[in-house]
């Protein structure tokens, strides 16, 4: 009886702990979301007396933010495209070949995940200026490819690991060349993993501050960098509005991800048995 009582108490404690953590995680987001719709021109106590879209308006009428948004969007699309190509090629090569130091090479490719981004950014800044590359967008692009590639490589590796090697062999012996076998069999089966890697990479690129802040120049800066510098100059709530929009975008991406991954589960069911 007493054992059961202890279990119940522990369960209650667990629930309380989970609740606390959720509150801790969600409160800042909720507060930010409410403040974004605050109609007052100054930072007042919560809740705001009335709601308005003035900060959104302010955000979209500010060239500084818009320029950052434009650069961020271009940068994210371009760097993700490149890092998906690089990631798929790398993962495919690494997965198919066996050679000494393979694991070490994979770790090297994934190392930007563990190296502090500030270090990556600073190192890249020095390296690129030695090479004479001083164009802001090129520098940012290099940085973003480096920080997003681990996500696309890892996602593709995971996807490829789930594909039975004999499927490729089956395609080959049925008359497909290696290239056709890749496009007919390997790629479609790894596609959902590649897509999820790309979405992660996109989110990472849109979100990055530490690397980007090192590589920006006066005319080329990303949205997160723009938000931080404007916050330091004059604090207003357009940052909250921008945050809400970024969160919405992320939420949409996660929904897409969730859908594609669960789709993968449905298709994969009962197939990859061995």
């Amino acid at each position, binding site marked *: 009886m007493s054992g059961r009582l202890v279990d119940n108490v522990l369960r209650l404690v667990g629930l309380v702990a989970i609740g606390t953590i959720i509150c801790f995680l969600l409160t800042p987001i909720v507060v930010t979301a409410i403040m974004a719709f605050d109609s007052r021109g100054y930072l007042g106590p919560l809740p705001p007396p009335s709601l308005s879209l003035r900060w959104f308006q302010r955000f979209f009428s500010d060239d500084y933010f818009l320029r950052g948004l434009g650069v961020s969007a271009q940068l994210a699309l371009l760097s993700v495209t490149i890092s998906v190509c690089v990631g798929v090629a790398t993962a495919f090569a690494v997965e198919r070949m066996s050679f000494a130091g393979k694991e070490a090479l994979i770790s090297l490719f994934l190392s930007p995940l563990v190296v502090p981004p500030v270090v990556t950014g600073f190192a890249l800044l020095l390296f690129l200026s030695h090479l004479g590359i001083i164009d802001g967008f090129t520098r940012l692009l290099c940085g973003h490819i480096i920080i997003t590639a681990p996500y696309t490589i890892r996602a593709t590796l995971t996807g490829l690991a789930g594909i*039975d090697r004999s499927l490729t062999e089956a395609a*080959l*012996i049925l008359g497909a*060349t290696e290239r056709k076998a890749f496009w007919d069999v390997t790629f479609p*089966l790894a596609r959902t993993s590649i897509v999820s890697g790309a979405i992660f990479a996109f989110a990472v690129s849109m979100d990055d501050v530490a690397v980007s802040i090192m590589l920006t120049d006066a005319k080329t800066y990303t949205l997160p960098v723009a938000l931080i510098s404007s916050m330091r100059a004059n604090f207003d709530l357009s940052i909250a509005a921008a945050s809400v929009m970024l969160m919405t975008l992320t939420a949409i991406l996660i929904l897409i991800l969730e859908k594609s991954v669960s789709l993968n589960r449905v298709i994969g*069911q009962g*197939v990859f048995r*061995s």
Partner: protein
Amino acid sequence: MQATQQAVIEFRNVVKRFGAVAAVDHVTFSVGAGETVSLLGPSGCGKTTTLRLVSGFEEPDEGAIEIAGESMVGKRPYERNVGLLFQHYALFPHMTVAENVAYGLKHRCWPKAEIGDRVREMLRLVRLQGFENRRPGQMSGGQQQRVALARVLATKPKLVLLDEPLSALDAKLREELGLELKQILTAVGSTTIVVTHDQDEAMSLADRIIVMNRGRIEQQGTPDEIYMQPRTAFVASFIGRTNWFHGKIVEAAGDGFSRFATDSGTALAIRNSSPVDGKKWSVCIRPERVTVTRSQDGSGKPGDNQLHGDVVDVVNMGAEFHYIVESPEGRIMVVEPNRAGARVQKGERVTLHFRAEDCVVLARDGV
């Protein structure tokens, strides 16, 4: 050279090494048109490597492989027109059954209209009409295997390779599909190599069996030859169940028979043409070639070998009985069909009879 003309596939002194190990070690064999040959052996005997050499996933280090008289050196798998039925079918999970079957035809550049006809024809052959739009994941193991077979046969390959075709299925389905597989392969008249470690699979599917061990061919022959006239102790013990006697040939009795004295002193009459040489030999006898009678019921036919012993176990396998008899020569197994229940009981004193003709004498090795 006449045989070379007819052979669909010809292996000559093929060697394939992985590191220092020769997975396939000077293997030579050929398969004639319409023939079904089984490569049989324990895991690691080189049969799978042989299959991969035929299909082009591996290149031989030495020797020649010819398919229909054409050298396969440097030919990629897609340049060979060989069909391979994978052990786990390897159906494309993202394609429908019809797309799977049509895949090979598409890459062999068949006209579109003919592809449709061929797919329908193949699905009729494997009795899967109406399944065209299913995905492999929605089908049972047996159905998936039939789809895989249809996909293999669709392109009319010169040679069909089956990799452990029945091993992924449960026992009951295995027997059914085994028969069906044989019928289909016979119907399309394909030349087939079956790779398996399962002797039943080999015996039931193949016209000829090639027994492999440690990368080498131990023996080639019809299932009957392999079973009744094994040429090495490995073949005798790998295929079927065997009772062994170890000893020496002591006297040639003429007419191809000899007297054999076991190490523990029993004298046996054996079929043998090798001379008295003082070397150590082993004699094997199949358990179903031994009969068992109660000792007091008198002896069997004159001229038979006789051994006395005690029944230590009677195992009822349904269709047959296994009697385990403890004799001066160790435990002897006797297998008899179950016609009217067990004829002797555990603990009884019995006499074993077997004919000299059924004894096979082999050079003793590690077995």
